[in-house]
């Protein structure tokens, strides 16, 4: 009994501490890599005085974890702003009525192709799906890569589990472009040919950079991490039919039912600003600005990516395809 009182005091202190932390803090769920996004959110905090609580996702379940969490919390939202690192999950949230409309100054500067006309979500700073190739293991030409993908053994190629993140977007695009049967057949074929299925795009990058695999499917931001580390890697955009590339924007949205709508709007406008797009373009992840920016402020690499992204596959109509594709993938993996 002597220890009951200290325990009560401790539990009380925890609750008190939490209450002290709470108040007007803005809760942000962020699927974008914390190593890039945290600094931007901290700058926002310093500049506006709005305190932000950041909740990040794991690499393995990238973005889908937070999307599912937001669906689960629909009736008792704890999140105010969702910074997704892709679009299709956000479309799902939008369809389920989880998102609130907001059209601010940031919304106005983003082209229509990358935003919801009702203002429930807005895209910014895109990445691309690319092949990462180890130049010491494979001839770094698109032809050699194409041969490696099309023919024979894939045991020295890597891909992330397609249930999550941008690999899910990649599959959804193929579902839409090829149709379900061709995608399923391709998927089973690559698995039969022993492709290495790993937990995330970062792991794909690590395997190729270390020479354990010759090439793999990843995103531009992961590729640049390997390149900056001086690894012998090169990238080529993944092209679906008609030479279209898969360019995946970040998206930001306000959660319906937020009690901090003014602060949430302030953050959304900040994230959609030219300043943030430039910051992300000039960060190690080299993201492609979608709104108008001073092109002199961009590196040659980002300018090249922006050129490729001009022929991006349209994603904003793929909500249904994503749903069907994800349902099939769940039946494949979660049994």
């Amino acid at each position, binding site marked *: 009994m002597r220890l009951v009182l200290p325990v009560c005091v401790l539990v009380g202190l925890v609750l008190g501490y939490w209450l002290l932390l709470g108040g007007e803090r803005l809760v942000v769920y962020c699927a974008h890599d914390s190593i890039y996004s945290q600094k931007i959110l901290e700058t926002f905090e310093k500049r506006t005085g709005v305190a932000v609580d950041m909740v990040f*996702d794991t690499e393995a379940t990238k973005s889908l*974890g937070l999307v599912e969490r937001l669906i689960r919390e629909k009736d008792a939202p704890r999140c105010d702003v969702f910074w997704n690192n892709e679009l299709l999950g956000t479309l799902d949230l939008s369809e389920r009525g989880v998102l609130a409309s907001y059209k601010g100054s940031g919304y106005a500067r983003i082209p229509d192709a990358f935003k919801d006309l009702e203002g429930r979500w807005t895209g910014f700073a895109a990445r691309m799906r690319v092949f990462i190739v180890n130049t010491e293991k494979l001839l770094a030409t698109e032809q050699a890569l194409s041969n490696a993908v099309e023919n024979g053994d894939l045991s020295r190629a890597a891909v992330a589990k397609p249930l999550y993140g941008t690999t899910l977007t990649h599959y959804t695009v193929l579902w839409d472009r090829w149709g379900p049967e061709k995608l399923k057949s391709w998927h089973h074929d690559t698995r039969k040919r022993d492709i290495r299925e790993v937990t995330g795009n970062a792991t794909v990058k690590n395997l190729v950079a270390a020479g354990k695999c010759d090439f793999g499917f990843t995103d531009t931001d992961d590729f640049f991490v390997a390149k900056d580390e001086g690894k012998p890697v090169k990238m080529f955009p993944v092209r679906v039919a008609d030479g279209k590339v898969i360019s995946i924007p970040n998206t930001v949205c306000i959660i319906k039912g937020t009690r901090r709508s003014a602060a949430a709007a302030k953050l959304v406008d900040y994230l959609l600003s030219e300043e943030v797009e430039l910051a992300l373009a000039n960060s190690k992840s080299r993201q492609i600005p979608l709104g108008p920016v001073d092109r002199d402020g961009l590196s040659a690499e980002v300018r090249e990516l922006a050129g490729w992204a001009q022929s991006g596959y349209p994603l904003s109509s793929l909500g249904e395809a994503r749903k069907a594709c994800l349902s099939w993938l769940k039946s494949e993996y979660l049994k």
Partner: protein
Amino acid sequence: MSLTAECGWTLLRALVVGTLALALAYPLCALIANSRRGWRRAAWVLLLVPYLMPVVLVGYAYSNFALSLVHHPFLNELFYGVLLTVKLCPVAAVVVYFAPSGLSREGIYCRRLLLAGKKKGDSIRERLSFFAHGPARKALVAFAVVFLFAFAEFEMASLFSTTAWTVSLFDAQTGGLPLSQSLRLASLPIACEAVLLLLVMTVLFAASRAARLNPERPKPPRPWARALSWLYLVFAVMLAAVVPTGIVLKGGVLALVVVKDNPAFAHDIGTSMIFAGVAALVAYLAAGWFSRRSGEGSPTMGRLLWAFLLSVPGLFGALLLGLVVLRVFLTVPLRAAYDTPLPLVITLMLLLFPFAVLLRVLLHAFGPGESVHAARLMVRSPEARIRRSGKALVWHMRTRARVWVLILLFCWGYFEVVASALLAPSGMTPAFVRLYNLMHYGQITGLSAMVLVTLFVPIVLLWFAEIARGFVRLRSYG
């Protein structure tokens, strides 16, 4: 591979790990029991260090190596299995060393006398009966505890990308698997764990009285067995502690500045300590309450039922328990408490509870009850010198062990990842959740620094606490 198949594979691995750990535990116990004091202490330290190394750190340190085995999944599984055995062998050894055997030394002596009078010796049935009432009980408890740990292991399996039902279920759940389906898939592992725990409880309670009589001391090992045991201890420490720490240190010390520039991380560490501290204390007290309720009498069904029911939630494992708590706090009556520290505190407490019970039962079974009683009488003495001696004796014989139980519970809570990832309220993210998320990007210098700091902060604090305790003791002696 389906989740059911993965569950089967994990079960098989846990059985192998449990058997190996048990096989290693007996010679190690013989070595410890028959070594001189200084050597015994060294052996204890070498034995326990691999277990006390946080799994997240070990998993992170070896993640690159595991990645390099991408074309050799069997070797990866083998390496993971070896590491798991090395990490869990201390648990088996501690249980074998401390758990009551079920037969007193006198009982064993009587059996020998009986056997000496017989011409034929024991029948097979009698031998089996003796084995079941004696050595098998202890072995079963040790095996069951190791099995439970191995079967529910998540962090290392996840960082090694090995096959494990925990990893798949965690990924599947965060990927949107409905809770009802998760629970259905988990029913088999839950049943296995529950049956084992019930057995452990039964054995421990049944043997608790016998433990008051001195348990049999293991026979001295032969010289070659002694040498091999020492060799194993050194190997285990190298594999599970020295090499991983070296790998993390190599990249980490150069980047401590990253931590300095990241004040939010200090907040995360503080959060981890608060959650772990509160949960450990509450679990410890609840386990104490349960022990007292159990009393000193012979085991009853009611008592076993209490132990079982109170331990079941923790046996669901962090993932399933976390999900159930999450769902409960999303229901209308409890929704107000959803985004507060309460769900996580409750979950951690429930997770720690079965282990708190086990440790307290072990303490109760092994503790020097009569001596503590004598020391307590000394504390009541009118003479100050005797009172001080009594207090010191009580500390050495009882309180110190309890403090170590609390520390162990604290460490389990501090290094927990899964429930924290699911239930931490916004603004209070425990440090290891953040680290675990980052670990999937691979080894980064800054991340290694963060891992080191997270690991050493509680150690340094415990060290300060020890100094403070010594200081208080000095003052009390005048």
